[in-house]
C-alpha cells in the first residue's frame, strides 16, 4: 500500500540527506519526494510517497520522529486529503494533430504553455491518476520529453496537515 507522509522539518542544511538516508537505511524505497519552504521560512515541508512492503510504515515514521530536525509527521489518508502532481510534457504536433491535442487539453483543463512549429509544451496538474490518464492520451502523438513532480498533499477541512 502506498502512503503519503507529510513531514514538517526545520529548514536547515543537511536535513534532506538525513531524511532520505533514513528511508534507505531502514529499507524503505521513496517513490516521490517534494521539498519546499512553508508559510514559515524556518520550516520546510517534505511530502514523501512510499510503498509499504515488508515492514509497517509506522517503523519508518517512528524512526523519522527521532531526527532532531523533524517537527511533525502526518500519514495522510487519501480520502481526507487533496493531492496534486504537476506534469510538463513536450509533444509532437503538426497541422493535422494540433487541433486534436488541443481538444484533449481542453477536456483535461490542461494548459499549453509553449508553441513552436513542431512541438507543444503542455502543463497539467491533478491527482496521480488524472495526470497518468492525460499522459496516456498524449503518447500516440509522440512524447519527446516529460517531467512530473512528486505528489504534494493537504488535508481537507480546517485542521492543518
Amino acid at each position: 500500500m502506498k502512503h503519503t507522509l507529510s513531514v514538517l522539518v526545520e529548514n536547515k542544511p543537511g536535513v534532506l540527506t538525513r531524511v532520505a538516508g533514513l528511508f534507505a537505511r531502514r529499507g524503505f524505497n521513496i517513490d516521490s519526494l517534494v521539498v519546499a519552504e512553508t508559510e514559515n521560512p524556518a520550516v520546510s515541508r517534505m511530502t514523501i510517497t512510499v510503498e509499504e512492503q515488508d515492514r509497517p510504515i509506522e517503523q519508518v515514521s517512528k524512526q523519522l520522529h527521532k531526527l532532531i530536525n523533524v517537527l511533525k509527521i502526518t500519514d495522510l489518508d487519501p480520502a481526507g486529503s487533496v493531492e496534486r502532481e504537476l506534469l510538463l510534457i513536450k509533444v509532437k504536433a503538426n497541422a493535422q494533430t494540433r487541433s486534436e491535442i488541443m481538444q484533449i487539453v481542453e477536456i483535461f483543463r490542461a494548459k499549453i504553455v509553449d508553441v513552436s512549429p513542431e512541438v507543444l509544451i503542455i502543463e497539467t496538474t491533478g491527482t496521480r491518476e488524472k495526470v497518468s490518464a492525460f499522459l496516456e492520451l498524449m503518447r500516440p502523438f509522440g512524447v519527446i520529453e516529460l517531467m512530473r513532480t512528486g505528489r504534494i498533499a493537504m488535508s481537507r477541512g480546517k485542521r492543518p496537515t
Partner: protein
Amino acid sequence: MRAAEVILEALKREGVDTIFGFPGGALLPLYDALYDSDIRHILVRHEQGAGHAADGYARASGKVGVCLATSGPGATNLVTPIATAYMDSIPLVAITGQVSRHLLGLDSFQEADVTGITMPIVKHSYLVKDAKLLPRIIREAFHIAGTGRPGPVVIDIPVDVTKEEMEYDPDNPPAMELPGYKPNLKGHPKQIREAARLIAAAERPVIYAGGGVIASGASEELRKLALYGHIPVTTTLTGKGAFPEDHHLSMGMLGMHGTPYANYAISKADLIIAVGVRFDDRVTGNLQAFAPEARFIHIDQDPAEISKNVPADVPIVGDAKKVLAALNAELEKVDLSPDRHLPWMEQVEAWKREHPLVIRESECGEIMPEFAVRKIWEVTQGEAIVCTEVGQNQMWAALFYTSRYPRRFITSGGLGTMGFGFPAAIGAQVARPDALVVDIAGDGSFQMTVQELATAVQHRLPVKVCILNNQYLGMVRQWQELFWSRRYSYTCIECQPDFVKLAEAYGAEGYRATRPEELEEILRAAFASDRPSVIDIRVKREANVFPMIPAGGTVHDMMEREP
C-alpha cells in the same frame, strides 16, 4: 574571546572536566587554548582509543563522554567508537576539527565529510559554520547526547571558525532551539495500570532488563519490582549489573550464550516485562519462537523500539526509572502474595539446579578460561569495574563474572567492537580513579588497540588487562569448529608478541600465568600494583563458550556443554 576558548568554557559549563583526544592541524587553535585550560586532556595514541575511552568514561560515570579528533583521518578514526556508542545508546560528544570554511568541498588536505560519514550512526550532528552559534550548539549537543535515549553527537568545527574573536558570557548561555526534540519521560498512566493488572494476574512472569535500566539509573526501582512481585530477572549483556546477579531471583544473562535457566524461563513465561531492551537477534534467536507463550509489557524510552521486533501487548514509552516507580506504586495497591506463582518459582529453581553453569578448572594441566574469569572475580571480590573485548572473552566474562552493580560491566554489545575494552577501561579508570578496573581481553582484540598502553602509562592509569590468550580469534574459530567442519580459515594467530615483554617495553608491568595453581597469586600481585599491568593468561586453546544457541535457533537447539 577566541572561539577556541569559548568552546572550552562552554564545555566546562556542561560539567566537562576531562577530554580524550589527539591533536592535528585543524585543531591547533583548540589545542592552543587547551594548553592553558584546567580541563584535563588524556592524550591517546590513536583516535579510536579516544572515542572508546570517552565511551568507557561515560558508561562508568553516567556523564557525557567527550572526545576530540582532527579533520580527515582523525575524524574517520572516530567512526568505530561513534557507531559503538550509537548501538549501545551511550552519551558521547565527539568534537572534530574540519578544514577552513573556504576549503570545504574542494577535496582539501585532510578534508572528509564527517557529518556525512557519521550521519547513520549519530543521534545528531552539527557542522558549525558560524562561531557565534558555538555556545548554543555545545549546549544542545550535551542535552541531546545525555537525555531521552542517550547517544553520540558530532560537532564538526572548521579551523578558521575556532580562530574567530567573539563575545561570550558563561552566565548567560543562549537558549536551546530544539523544537523537534521532546523525549517523553513519563509513561502513560493507563498503560501502567494495565501493566500492573497483567503482572498481578501472571502465573509465569519474567523480567527481561537491559541497558536502558542502567542508562536511566533505574536499578533500585527494578529491584523493588522484582522483589515485591517475586519475579525472576534476566538481563541482557549491556544490562549486566542492572539487577544483582547473586540474588536468588537473578537468572543471569539470556540469549545466544545466556544461561540455560534464563532461556528456559523465557520459553515458558506467560508474561515478559521487558525494560530498556530492544529484542536484539542475539537475545531472541528465532523471533517467532521467542517466548511463544508470553504476553509482552515493553517499557522503553524510544517509541521506535516498541513493537520493532516483537509486538508489545502493553507498550509504555518513558524513562525506565519513572515508569518503574509508577508501576511499583500501582502494584502496591494490589496484594501480590509470594504464593501466587509458587510452582513457577519452583520450576525456575529446578532449572537452575538441573542446568547449572559449569566451571572447569583445568584440562591436561591447562587453565580453562571460565576458571580464569572466576578467579578474577574471586580476587576482585566481584567489586571491580570489568571491561571486555569482543568474542569468547566477552561471553566468558559475561557468564562467569557475577555482576552486582550497574555501571561496572562495560562491553560493546550492539556493535561488537574488538579493541573496545582496553581504551574503555582507560576511560573508566579516569572516571573512577579509586576503582580497580580490569579489562578481560582476548589476544586478538587486545592487539587492535594495544598502543593505548602508552596512554595508560603516561597518565598513570593502573588498568589491568587480563588476556585470555588462546592464540586464536576464538569465537570465529568456535563457529568454524561447530558449523564449518573445523576449517580454521585465518583464525589462528600464533604469531603474536610476547605480551609480557610488550607491556614492559611500554613501561607497564607484564605477568604470565600458564598453570591453574599459579593464577591466583599472579592476579593478586598484578592487581595490587599501582601501575598498568598486562596478565598473559594462557588458556586451553580450543575451549569453547557454552551454553550456546546457534544463530536463529531456539532453546531446543541449545548446546549446554562440549558435545
